[in-house]
């Protein structure tokens, strides 16, 4: 178990380094960053001054090492647009995105797991078909469009929910549904498949044969085992959802980290973009690492691979 954890941790750290290098390289994708910063009309001297001021005249690897050293201390430099430290900026926006992410994954699990279980108990029944329809539709639904339709119906026509902003819990209802629905199909399918698999196994037959009540068989015996892979999928989905929050936050004008990403990309504020890519990736890396360790702890067979 310890060996597995250490190996997995090593991989996570290596992945984190590679991601950090890629997000750093973005700065150089546009060509000369000094020219981009000084503006189209800047003179040669101005560009040279910017280059020296920000240290763009040094070799790229030196700049990367320098950037990384600051980044691990959570210092990403100054935002070009907001004129404040990027780390402060990101921290101030992260709360909204985390709230949205936690609400979204909770919504997804609370709808997907019961639906998946119900669908597996009675395959090909009406509830199974409804669950299948919801998951197929969810995979094909453009989330930005779904969000707009919800705003039109519940925000404007019916007036039940505030259409945009983040000042009260009610503001999070529609974004939670949109973001959660995006993660729901995969979790539901896995729950259903896992339950179907487990319900046909010998120990469930034994449990039924010895006369255990059906509710106990389903939840104590079956769901407990079927839920293990769902845990790790939920962690992966949580990582993806932080990325998906860009679209959702921009529709509902929630000023979180996703909205900040959109703003800073549109304004060419590269230090902020780099920091956000790194932060979002770190969340994904940490979530998947925790999920793998949790999985290995719950299921010893996972430790060997």
């Amino acid at each position: 178990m310890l060996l597995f954890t250490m190996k997995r941790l090593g991989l996570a750290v290596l992945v984190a380094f590679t991601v950090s290098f890629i997000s750093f390289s973005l700065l150089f994708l546009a060509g000369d960053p000094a020219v981009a910063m000084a503006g189209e009309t800047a003179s040669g001297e101005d560009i040279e001054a910017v280059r020296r001021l920000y240290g763009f005249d040094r070799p790229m690897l030196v700049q990367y090492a320098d950037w990384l050293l600051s980044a691990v201390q959570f210092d990403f430099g100054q935002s070009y647009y907001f004129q404040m430290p990027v780390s402060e900026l990101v921290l101030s926006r992260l709360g909204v995105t985390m709230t949205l992410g936690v609400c979204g994954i909770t919504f997804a699990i609370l709808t997907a797991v019961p639906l998946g279980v119900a669908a597996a108990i009675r395959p090909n029944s009406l509830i199974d078909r409804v669950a299948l329809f919801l998951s197929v539709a969810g995979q094909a639904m453009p989330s930005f469009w779904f969000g707009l339709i919800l705003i039109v119906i519940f925000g404007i026509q019916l007036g039940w929910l505030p259409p945009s902003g983040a000042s009260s819990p009610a503001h999070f209802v529609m974004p939670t549904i949109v973001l959660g629905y995006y993660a729901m199909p995969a979790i539901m399918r896995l729950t259903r498949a896992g339950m179907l698999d487990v319900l046909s196994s010998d120990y469930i037959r034994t449990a039924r044969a010895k006369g255990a009540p059906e509710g106990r068989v389903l939840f104590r015996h079956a769901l407990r085992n079927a839920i293990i892979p769902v845990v790790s999928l939920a962690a992966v989905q949580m990582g993806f959802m932080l990325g998906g929050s860009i679209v959702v936050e921009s529709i509902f004008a929630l000023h979180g980290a996703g909205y900040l990403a959109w703003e800073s990309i549109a304004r060419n504020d590269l230090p902020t973009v780099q920091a956000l890519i790194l932060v979002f990736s770190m969340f994904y890396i940490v979530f998947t690492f925790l999920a793998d360790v949790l999985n290995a702890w719950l299921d010893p067979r996972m430790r060997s691979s």
Partner: protein
Amino acid sequence: MTLSETHDPILKEITGPTPGQMLRKRVFGHQGLMIGVVVIAILTLVAIFAPLLAPHDPYAQSLMTRMEPPVFLGGEWEHPLGTDHLGRDYLSRLIYGARVSLMIGVIAALISGVIGTAMGVAAGYFGGRVDMVVTFLINVRLAMPVVLVALAVVAILGGSLQVVIIVLGLLLWDRFAVVMRASTLQVRNREYVSAARAIGASTPRVILSEIMPNIANNLIVVVTLEMAHAILLEAALSFLGLGVQPPTPSWGLMVSEGKNMMLFEPWMVVIPGVVLFVLVLAINLMGDGLRDVTAPENRS
């Protein structure tokens, strides 16, 4: 033995339907697959024959006929789905938009398919160090938030159809690599592969004529999934204003342009969204159907 003997009813009963007949039966008996194929065929024809089908020029603006409603909301047949805020015919833009979406889906899936399949097959076939490197690259790729990276790169390079296609093609190879690696691992130690090696077939030959045909069914399923993924991502990027740029008729862009008029003219948002939903749904139905039809356990 003559050919006419195969028409003997008793013999037919003994031999049963041929594998080809069984496949045909599975394909035509699968509702989801048929619906998906028909919808995609129609939309592809619409995209190819867009100039013949579109009633107007999708770029032609007209200040006299701005924001006319579609016929089912009391509009004129001159513009069956109404006109947008610049007086452009909505139906014509929708028809040309099919070209953008399908082109993105097909080319991006092709690029990522080539990259991901090469990586996945190499990892599965050679194992060892190659496998370690590919698995690591897949992990790195999965850790990067796609929407964020795609937005940033497209914004830096400038939004155009070509840039969006290439960026998505270079980003979406992960599922190809994962699935092709697993599929190759499953078949690489089968007898026919060993047999091919034993008679002295070269490595490229073993991969191309022994491995590839036997994992092609999984490949096709991933192609459809990634086509759908690329189409949705392009729409999202264009919706955020950092993908395909106006005046190109992209469905995501049309939703974005309609958003400002959403309070008064919700149809401007609803129509392109529904078309996008139908296309992606059809592709997913086709992918799920292909998986069911080609799965070995469903062949009985």
